[in-house]
């Protein structure tokens, strides 16, 4: 399997009054044409890892890495202008909440079309045709009508499908999905995931799926990285998640209430300070 993305010893640092805060500490992994899940609690650095790959960390934040390469080509040394060509066209990112990531005063169709025309020189007519086809691909029934709608007129699930359409239309090689379904209902969640899964598979893309939901990740991804305090503590094939060895992963799994196994008290995670000091596992 060819490596789409290679990350070696990635650090994200934020200088503060009390010294430097390390949000991500020496994370290494590689991504092929697969679905890689990154799980962890809030503050574990999973979103920062996703942002650092696109070099979206704003100063004073600092990104450092021994290697950050897209299909063998270095990303660290690129200028902002060159990075703009990578973002969207090569690597795209789906954010958590469509309510905050769509432009509220621009019609949905125009926004998707803009994403396409930024990267490809095509006529408006052709771009519109492509946009409508893309809306259909994300299972929107009446693309002509949705094309003319404003973001406040669509539901959460539809908004997230519009985001997916917008991110996929430039045909990127890698998609980073940062909690794409946590703002959605359980029943809509599955639907959005299925659409994403199908499109990623059909196009042979690599997917980085960032989530706090262990069960969701284990059922949806091929491989899982578990992050704690800015480090990767364990890496596993997704179907073996329930055989995890690391006490942190075990603790997370045990703290979930279960319908099929009722208990009087839930197990509470006891944090071991040693976990934060361990070396990062490469995945």
């Amino acid at each position, binding site marked *: 399997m060819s490596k789409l993305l290679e990350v070696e010893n990635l650090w994200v640092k934020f200088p503060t009054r009390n010294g430097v805060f390390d949000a991500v500490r020496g994370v290494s992994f590689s991504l092929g044409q697969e679905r890689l899940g990154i799980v962890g609690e809030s503050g574990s650095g999973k979103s920062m890892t996703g942002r650092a790959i696109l070099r979206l960390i704003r100063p004073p934040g600092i990104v450092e890495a021994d290697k950050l390469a897209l299909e063998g080509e270095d990303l660290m040394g690129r200028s902002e202008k060159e990075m703009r060509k990578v973002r969207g066209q090569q690597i795209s990112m789906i954010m958590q909440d469509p309510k905050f990531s769509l432009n509220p005063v621009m019609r949905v169709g125009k926004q998707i079309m803009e994403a396409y025309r930024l990267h490809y020189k095509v006529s408006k007519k052709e771009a519109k045709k492509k946009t409508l086809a893309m809306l259909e691909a994300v299972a929107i029934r009446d693309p002509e009508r949705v094309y003319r709608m404003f973001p406040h007129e669509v539901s959460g699930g539809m908004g997230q499908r519009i985001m997916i359409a917008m991110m996929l239309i430039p045909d990127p090689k890698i998609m980073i999905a940062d909690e794409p379904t946590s703002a959605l209902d*359980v*029943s809509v969640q599955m639907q959005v995931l299925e659409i994403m899964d199908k499109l990623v598979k059909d196009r042979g893309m690599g997917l980085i799926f960032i989530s*706090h939901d262990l069960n969701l990740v284990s*059922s949806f991804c091929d491989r899982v990285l578990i992050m704690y305090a800015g480090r990767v503590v364990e890496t596993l094939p997704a179907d073996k998640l329930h055989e995890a060895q690391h006490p942190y992963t075990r603790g997370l799994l045990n703290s*979930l209430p279960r*319908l099929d196994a009722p208990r009087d008290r839930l197990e*509470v995670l006891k944090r071991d300070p040693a976990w934060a000091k361990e070396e990062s596992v490469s995945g």
Partner: protein
Amino acid sequence: MNGIEIEGLNVWFGDYEERVDAVKGANLSVPKGGSFGLVGESGSGKSTILRAIMGLAPTWSGKIDILGKPVETPRSRDFYRAVQMVFQDPYASLHPRHSVDQVLSETLSLHGFSDIDKRISQLLDDVGLGPSFRFRYPHQLSGGQRQRVAIARALAPEPQILLLDEPTSALDVSVQAEILNLLTDLRAEHKLTYLMVSHDLAVVGHICQDIAVMQLGEIVETLGVEDMRAMRTTHPYTKHLLESSLQSAAG
């Protein structure tokens, strides 16, 4: 005597052609000391029922009895002494410029308590926060600690009924476990009655004895937790919810 008794509750917003019926003919009863869960998708009207009980949804019809007495409009101080609510998002429901001490002492003095100092220490102790948290501001607390403060505030007037609106959906799973344990302990200690709203069937199944499933403003099925675990349901929507929830749990 039942803690909460609701019959034929309708709640609507807007008038004439803009009228939206958020809750249609809901019936439910929670025995004193019991715990009852409402599940359903967003927009199914589950939070609206809680808001109607609290007097936060002004247009409603039907019957709402609390501890055997019909509610008054506007709600009396005695009502708020008996019924308190914990909201979904601890980041939004605490005043950003009030310290924990101010939040709790305001509630206590509104309800006419005199030994405020002692009660604040007791409340913080009840929810598992030490005295060191007393003079902190919300931004100095983590999400789980904030939700503990919100629960302490709800407990301040010594209520008999707690309405819980998705109390853990904004929290991490490890913190969720701590808060759910805390809620279980508090119910046993203070003999509270819970009415809880959640979209997570596993959470509701952990806390509640009886569960009502809502869809499009109507309660489509009410069942006991044992029946739910054994998949003894009659309504297809309940079945669908249970299957998708068990599927994601099994991985």
